[in-house]
């Protein structure tokens, strides 16, 4: 079935280009989301639905990437449902909406390609593809600010990804006589690689793809792009794009593990992870734009993923659980931010007062999303962060774990201050009441429910999938 989700967007774009009907726009996105979800579920449960369409040499689901695929599917489905309501509320020209639809299809297509690819070179191509597809989506509102955000995004990410290509070239030098970029062959032959070139290539790939993933100190595009993009796109950027970049880093990291020079890679990941936490703690404290606040929180969570990867073992398992939880909760957070933006017409934290009075459901979703991202139990992030701290203690990193807790506390304080001010204050000015359809609440409710449910009860089958995914780190 994997070929199907890679081919469907192309057909969908073709149909859209030929018929140019308004109703087709949303239909195609929804259809793709449902198809994506079915295929991802089948891949996770190891069911082969249509053997004719099963993967090929360059794209296949394996133990690790099917977790990423599943997370992407859930978030994309939720975003697609939300998008129906969002498009209805935003009166735009049919042509502009059609371009928006093309780009969403291409964006999800390139992320899917990046996640499923079995070849380092192909992954690179698709990661660059995500940059190009999402550039238009960030520029969608065509204001001065969105042009600035789109320019920074394309330029910084393209340079980062070009440097990652330097890393790939250095990796081919390291491979010696082996002429391949397939992950499987790279893993098998990793011990023969030249460690000098391998280490150098990891530096380039970590910094290059780290730009895309939003790790400090190369995160500068992220707050701008997330804040200026339409809210469904912000949710996709934060909850799926950053993950697919993380997967590429993870795969290259695995090569260094097999080659036996991972000590060096772990130090680099750890440093970038803590830097990300530090940057978020510094900036989120005085933040005055709630979408930028969420973007900084994404940087923080990407930092946590990097730290978990660096720890290895239980830390790696925690990182994968964290990735799932963060994607679900952060997507819900961004979609709710979209509701708030519709209600108040501003992104300033100070101008949003009495959210609970204005729209009770949006207000509670906002508070619950905060509770989830702040890792209050029973949020699944509580488990992942707890496991991570446990893993730090086991490895004797006492000072690091104190630093980790301290930085997280500052971040939660910064987020909490803003969220409480927005929701529980009394309403100062009258806003024009806007009523949202069910499709602008339900996706967030479902994603939060999943995130809190897995915090209380994690089924055996899920645990097995997760353990298989992190085997070998």
């Amino acid at each position: 079935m994997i070929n199907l989700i890679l081919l469907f967007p192309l057909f969908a774009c073709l149909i859209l280009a030929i018929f140019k009907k308004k109703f087709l726009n949303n239909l195609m996105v929804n259809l793709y989301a449902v198809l994506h979800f079915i295929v991802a579920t089948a891949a996770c449960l190891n069911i082969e639905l249509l053997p004719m369409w099963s993967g090929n040499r360059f794209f296949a689901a394996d133990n690790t990437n099917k977790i990423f695929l599943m997370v992407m599917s859930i978030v994309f489905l939720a975003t697609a449902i939300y998008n129906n309501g969002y498009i209805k509320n935003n009166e735009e020209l049919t042509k502009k909406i059609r371009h928006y639809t093309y780009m969403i299809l291409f964006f999800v297509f390139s992320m899917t390609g990046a996640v499923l690819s079995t070849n380092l070179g192909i992954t690179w191509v698709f990661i660059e593809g995500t940059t190009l597809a999402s550039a238009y989506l960030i520029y969608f509102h065509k204001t001065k600010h969105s042009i600035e955000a789109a320019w920074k995004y394309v330029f910084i990410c393209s340079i980062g990804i070009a440097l990652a290509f330097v890393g790939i070239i250095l990796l081919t030098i390291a491979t010696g006589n082996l002429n391949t970029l397939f992950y499987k062959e790279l893993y098998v032959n990793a011990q023969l690689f030249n460690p000098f070139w391998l280490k150098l290539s990891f530096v380039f790939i970590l910094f290059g793809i780290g730009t895309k993933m939003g790790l400090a100190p190369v995160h500068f595009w992220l707050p701008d792009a997330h804040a200026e993009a339409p809210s469904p796109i912000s949710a996709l950027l934060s909850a799926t794009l950053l993950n697919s970049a993380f997967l590429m880093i993870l795969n290259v990291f695995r090569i260094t593990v097999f080659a036996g020079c991972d000590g060096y890679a772990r130090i680099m990941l750890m440093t970038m992870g803590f830097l990300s936490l530090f940057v978020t703690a510094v900036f989120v404290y005085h933040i005055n734009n709630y979408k930028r606040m969420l973007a900084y929180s994404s940087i923080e969570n990407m930092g946590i993923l990097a730290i978990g990867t660096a720890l290895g073992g239980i830390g790696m398992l925690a990182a994968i659980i964290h990735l799932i939880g963060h994607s679900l909760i952060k997507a819900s957070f961004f979609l709710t931010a979209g509701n708030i933006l519709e209600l108040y017409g501003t992104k300033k934290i100070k101008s949003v007062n009495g959210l609970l009075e204005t729209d009770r459901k949006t207000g509670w979703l906002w508070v619950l999303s905060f509770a989830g991202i702040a890792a209050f139990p029973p949020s699944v992030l509580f488990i992942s962060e707890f496991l991570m701290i446990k893993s730090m203690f086991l490895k004797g990193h006492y000072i690091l774990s104190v630093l980790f807790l301290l930085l997280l506390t500052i971040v939660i304080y910064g987020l909490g201050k803003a969220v409480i001010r927005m929701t529980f204050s009394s309403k100062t000015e009258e806003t024009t009441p806007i009523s949202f359809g069910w499709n602008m609440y339900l996706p967030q409710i479902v994603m939060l429910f999943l995130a809190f449910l897995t915090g209380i009860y994690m089924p055996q089958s899920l645990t097995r999938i997760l353990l298989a995914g992190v085997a070998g780190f």
Partner: protein
Amino acid sequence: MENIFIILLGLSMIYIAATSRLAAHVNMLIVQGWLLFFVCLTGFAKEPWFNWSMVSGSGAIMANIPHIVGFLFVIVETLVVKAFIIPLFLKKVVKKTNAHRDTEANIPHFYCLFISSVILFAGFLIANIDAPQFKLIDSMYFGVSIAIIITSLWLITIKHKVLSNVIGFITMENGIFLLSLSVAKEMPIIVNLGVLLDIFIAVFILGMLVREINNEFDDLEVSHLSDLKDYEYND
């Protein structure tokens, strides 16, 4: 033979660093495209299969198809895309936006000349490192390409026009192309194609954004694009 072309590539970066006319920069991109083509051509000329007999008769063509495809691909990549389409597109953008000069760089041109020469010199020094690791690569390619990449990144940081930044990005891609030639192995053709397509679309999108920036802000100064920040922010 190819060392001459590689050194000329390095020198073309010094020229870009020392001039302020954007049209001259675009012309240097054409020159770089041709030079990269000649570097590839000298590489091909060393191969035993590379002579006229490979296209003599259908049997020889069938036997040499992978080589011919590789050769045609290099022609498309260097001559058609790097030396023709991208410069043509940028020339159009220069004309549309009326941005002929990038005068107010942060550093005077004399220093630019000096610093880029030092970087190139450092590249030559890298090329002469005698370490076992460097046995795996062609060190001349490696040194100069590192120098080109670093010079481009540095030029991006000091120039004031967004179009100069795009040109810096393309010269960096040229440097990376040269770096990929330093490895004797070839990337799979599908990867090469993807890379080429991505770079091409990236330049295209950047060019479109340059036009939009010109329409929105009336000129192409980078300083306009610094309104989004965390403090004193108005939306």
